[in-house]
């Protein structure tokens, strides 16, 4: 044993403190600055939207596009935005889940890498290209399907005929959006599935689970929060996607039918109308943008709430 050579009492005026290293200090400063910067930008955008939107809320209803006030103007756009995004999610989520599981748990390693690469490439295609593809190839090819839906399921308002002759409908826009959000959801789902601890997968297998049962017992529950985040990111992109929808959709007034032309989304409406707008029209469009901002924020908060609700069971501890 060695005896301590330190004096029993510390010299006055020199409290012991952990030495602050410059690297730590700089890093902590940089992260804080980045965080603050994001908040400032966000607040700036929100303030701009609110300031520019207020005239539209205050304006005489007759002055607003449609002549019945802002609310009457914006709700069909909100409907169109939500429905297009919803169609996209319904198509993309199961597909993304399947592809991600195939890559993470079924495909031979070589093939999994190739497939993952192809899906990532989808994310690199600009939305204008998706728009072109939607008009030139997809719309003519799905037209028949929408006609079939109108003929056979036309009693459901969503599929009420007559189907669009060009195929440039909400359903088509939804399919284009689905392809666009597929890579984000797939990439995130794949990553979280790959991170499932071997320990838990083997626990399931050792109980006599088949591969699919193992996935249901260990992989999906473990990946659930990540999957929800991925879906919400996809939803965020679908809600805000402008160019592809503006190109593909043959816009028009509100209709329940998703297989005929009509409806529009907030983002596409802004993109299409902004160049020729002036005065109160501009304010109206910005107010619509504010509504989109709020919707997206609400969607993100909802996602957080869903993830947090079952935190104790998340496996994070």
């Amino acid at each position, binding site marked *: 044993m060695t005896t301590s050579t330190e004096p029993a009492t510390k010299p006055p005026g020199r409290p012991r403190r952990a030495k602050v290293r410059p690297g730590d200090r700089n890093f902590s400063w940089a992260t804080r600055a980045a965080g603050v910067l994001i908040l400032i930008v966000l607040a700036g955008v929100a303030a701009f939207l609110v300031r520019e939107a207020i005239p539209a809320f205050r304006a005489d209803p007759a002055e607003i596009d449609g002549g019945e006030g802002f609310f009457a103007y914006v709700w069909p756009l909100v409907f169109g935005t939500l429905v297009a995004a919803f169609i996209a999610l319904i198509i993309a989520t199961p597909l993304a889940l399947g592809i991600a599981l195939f890559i993470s748990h079924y495909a031979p390693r070589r093939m999994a890498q190739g497939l993952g690469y192809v899906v990532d490439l989808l994310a690199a295609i600009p939305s204008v290209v998706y728009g072109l593809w939607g008009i030139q190839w997809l719309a003519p090819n799905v037209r028949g399907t929408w006609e079939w839906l109108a003929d056979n399921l036309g009693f459901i308002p969503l599929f009420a005929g007559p189907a669009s002759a060009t195929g440039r409908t909400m359903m088509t826009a939804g399919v284009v959006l689905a392809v666009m959000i597929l890579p984000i959801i797939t990439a995130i789902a794949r990553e979280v599935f790959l991170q499932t601890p071997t320990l838990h997968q083997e626990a399931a297998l050792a109980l006599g689970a088949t591969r699919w049962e193992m996935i249901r017992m260990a992989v999906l529950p473990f990946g659930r929060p990540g999957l929800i985040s991925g879906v919400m990111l996809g939803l965020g992109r679908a809600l805000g996607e402008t160019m592809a929808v503006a190109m593909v959709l043959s816009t028009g007034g509100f209709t329940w039918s998703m297989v005929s032309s009509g409806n529009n989304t907030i983002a596409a409406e802004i993109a299409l109308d902004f160049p020729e707008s002036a005065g109160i029209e501009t304010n109206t469009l910005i107010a619509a943008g504010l509504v989109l901002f709020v919707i997206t924020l609400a969607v993100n908060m909802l996602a957080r709430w869903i993830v947090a609700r079952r935190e104790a069971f998340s*496996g*994070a501890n």
Partner: protein
Amino acid sequence: MSKRIDVSDLNVYYGDFLAVEGVTMAVEARSVTAFIGPSGCGKSTFIRTLNRLHEVVPGTRVEGKVLLDGQDLYGPAVDPVVVRRQIGMVFQRPNPFPTMSLRDNVLAGIKLNNSRMRKSEADDVVERSLRGANLWNEAKDRLDTPGSGLSGGQQQRLCIARAIAVEPDVLLMDEPCSALDPISTLAIEDLIAELKENYTIVIVTHNMQQAARVSDRTAFFNIAGTGQPGKLIEMDDTTKIFTNPGEKATEDYVSGRFG
């Protein structure tokens, strides 16, 4: 329930690497068999061949025979999933499903076999299994809380409860106490002594006192050097292995005179 295991001429590979070579042994029903040996000699690898879990690692294979009461587990018509339902396993690190409640953890294996089970029946299974794993008193008031909220020792007993809930023929344990404190270790050792009444138990352990305390028979594995395959050196009654082993290497290992 409880069945015997006969292994003959088993070679176990990871890709081209022969990890365990030429193992022949018999494991009696309703007994505890301990596997001891230095790290890396293939104890985990070998025990995982007994429930066909070894082959879930890509590129691995097994040669030789493992008979469970005479039925070859590696026969061409045998489904590994069915094998694993008959042979339970407890791992080195406690691994209850973190996304499931205690109750669902215990029932996880049962639900694979028959998903439709009456609630009263399920309640019985949960109570019987948790009592069997000496966890009932600690768990009965928190059956709906997540398994990850338990202490390490409790989690390991939960894993034992999960394994015995399906009433397997054999229970394999790979260093079940190495991540636990001494008190929890004793609790598990007591449990093993009780479980032996009904199950064939195979346990890998690093702890020689533990092998001496809990097992009836002990198998000593060794490895000649890195890159060499692990081999079964000798297997005998535990008292014999620890007092008067047949091989010099075994004596060196159990007396602590080992590299």
